[in-house]
């Protein structure tokens, strides 16, 4: 049954007895045409677009824990398309367009809120760099505008404009950027996929791949063997562990990224704000909590928690940017495991094993990419050709020298 305003009123008048579960909980079948490993945002979006856009059937999503139990539930919910390089920006703008229609498409309230992002700059050189980035955004059809300090003083008067070391000179604004309800995104895609016949199988850990003569035959799981003509892996954070079972080494290190939320406050921060002189970004959730984060901890980690030096660094960034944040109490902090790739950009590609496909390396930018990642991965799985916005996300870009390095720091994952 669909969601609508009429139905909310009807259920309110009848004691909310008509709401059912959002998806079935089926037993795994012996064989599928397409098996997606990983029931997070990207895996569920892939299954949804496979069924809805690419008209595929006999699809299963295998999830080790519960749906959306990984990074889709641990991020800071920012959506934006303000990248620089031609390999990246058209893809993220495609994702932004999918976000803009997501709720209507899924008939699910994922609380997409285009409340804008402000990337602050603090020097003349940084203004030039952001002007260039804004132009690159325009080339892909995205919006972006350069704001002066006077514009900002009107919009966000609480910033520390006259910081002696990092005065705020202006910002690059993308008005269409914003936030979305992270769990709701996973639930919306899960429900949409389930309605189109996809089997969402939870508590089903993939423990191995069955590969014969260089072709995938299926996956070994904690709930028995499941045959498959094609297998797509979307398990960012654990990509190296899973692909090692297929004998692959990846251009990826796993790192922990921490995030923070304050106690609930009255509405104070209008959109997303990023500090240009350090790594700090903040937005305010609809419940009122300030949601913020900064750098990764910087060492290989599979622990979903970080250490105190980065907590201190993030808070210092916040204090330099908006001293009022010092009056808010921190409610929670947590960590998530990132696939940090060697150039800071993702991979959506076939592997050298026929029928085995890979989606990962999202660094700490995977959430905003969820719709386009699912769409492009579904395109690859269904047609065996890359989606036209994702042609650069190939494994062999490293050996060919065509890396997509937004920051230009080289093959050092903890610097991206």
């Amino acid at each position, binding site marked *: 049954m669909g969601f609508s305003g009429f139905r909310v009123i009807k259920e309110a008048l009848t004691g909310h007895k008509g709401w059912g579960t959002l998806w079935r909980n089926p037993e795994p079948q012996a064989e599928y045409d397409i098996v997606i490993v990983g029931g997070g945002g990207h895996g569920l979006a892939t299954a949804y677009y496979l069924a809805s856009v690419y008209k595929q059937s006999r699809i299963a999503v295998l999830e080790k824990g519960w749906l959306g139990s990984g990074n889709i539930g641990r991020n800071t919910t920012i959506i934006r398309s303000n990248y620089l390089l031609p390999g990246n920006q058209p893809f993220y703008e495609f994702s932004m367009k999918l976000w803009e229609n997501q709720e209507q498409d899924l008939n699910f309230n994922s609380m997409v809120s285009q409340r804008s992002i402000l990337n602050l700059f603090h020097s003349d050189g940084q203004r030039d760099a952001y002007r260039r980035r804004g132009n690159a955004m325009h080339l892909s059809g995205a919006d972006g505008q350069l704001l002066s300090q006077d514009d900002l003083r009107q919009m966000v008067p609480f910033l520390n404009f006259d910081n002696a070391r990092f005065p705020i000179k202006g910002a690059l604004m993308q008005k269409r950027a914003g936030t979305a309800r992270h769990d709701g995104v996973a639930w919306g895609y899960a429900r949409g996929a389930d309605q189109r016949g996809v089997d969402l199988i939870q508590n089903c850990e993939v423990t191995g791949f069955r590969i014969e003569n260089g072709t995938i035959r299926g996956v070994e799981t904690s709930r028995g063997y499941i045959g498959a003509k094609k297998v797509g892996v979307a398990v960012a954070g654990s990509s190296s562990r899973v692909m090692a079972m297929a004998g692959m080494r990846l*251009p990826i290190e796993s790192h922990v990224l921490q995030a923070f939320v304050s106690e609930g406050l009255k509405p104070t921060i209008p959109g997303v704000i990023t500090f240009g002189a350090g790594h700090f970004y903040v937005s305010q959730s609809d419940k009122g909590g300030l949601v913020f984060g900064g750098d990764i901890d910087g060492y290989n980690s599979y622990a979903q928690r970080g250490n105190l030096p980065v907590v201190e660094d993030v808070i210092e960034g916040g204090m330099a940017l908006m001293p009022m944040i010092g009056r808010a109490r921190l409610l929670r902090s947590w960590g998530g495991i990132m696939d940090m790739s060697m150039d800071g950009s993702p991979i959506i590609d076939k592997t050298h094993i026929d029928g085995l496909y890979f989606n990962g390396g999202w660094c700490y930018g995977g959430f905003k990419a969820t719709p386009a990642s699912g769409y492009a991965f579904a395109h690859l799985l269904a047609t065996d050709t890359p989606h036209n916005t994702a042609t650069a996300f190939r494994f062999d870009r490293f050996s060919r020298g065509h890396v997509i390095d937004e920051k230009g720091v080289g*093959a050092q994952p903890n610097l991206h």
Partner: protein
Amino acid sequence: MLIPHPLLGLRDAQEFTYLGDANMMARPDPTGPDAEAAFCDYVFLRDNPAGVHRELWFHEQGDRSWLVVTRNTVTHEILSAELATDVARKDA
């Protein structure tokens, strides 16, 4: 995290800079027949294990020595630390 420096005792990990997998000490032979492919693997591919990991840390704000630290990436427990020069001598 505290790193047990073999010469200086327990030191705060903040004094160090992290490079990555200690296998990077074993550079491929640049004159070998497959040098290009070997260097591509060396620069870009990593084992990235969940569990015990040998890794290179540089004591940048200390004695500027390179250490090979053995650490568990699941628990962050540090199991041992050796001078990279000692490790290189052992492996030679």
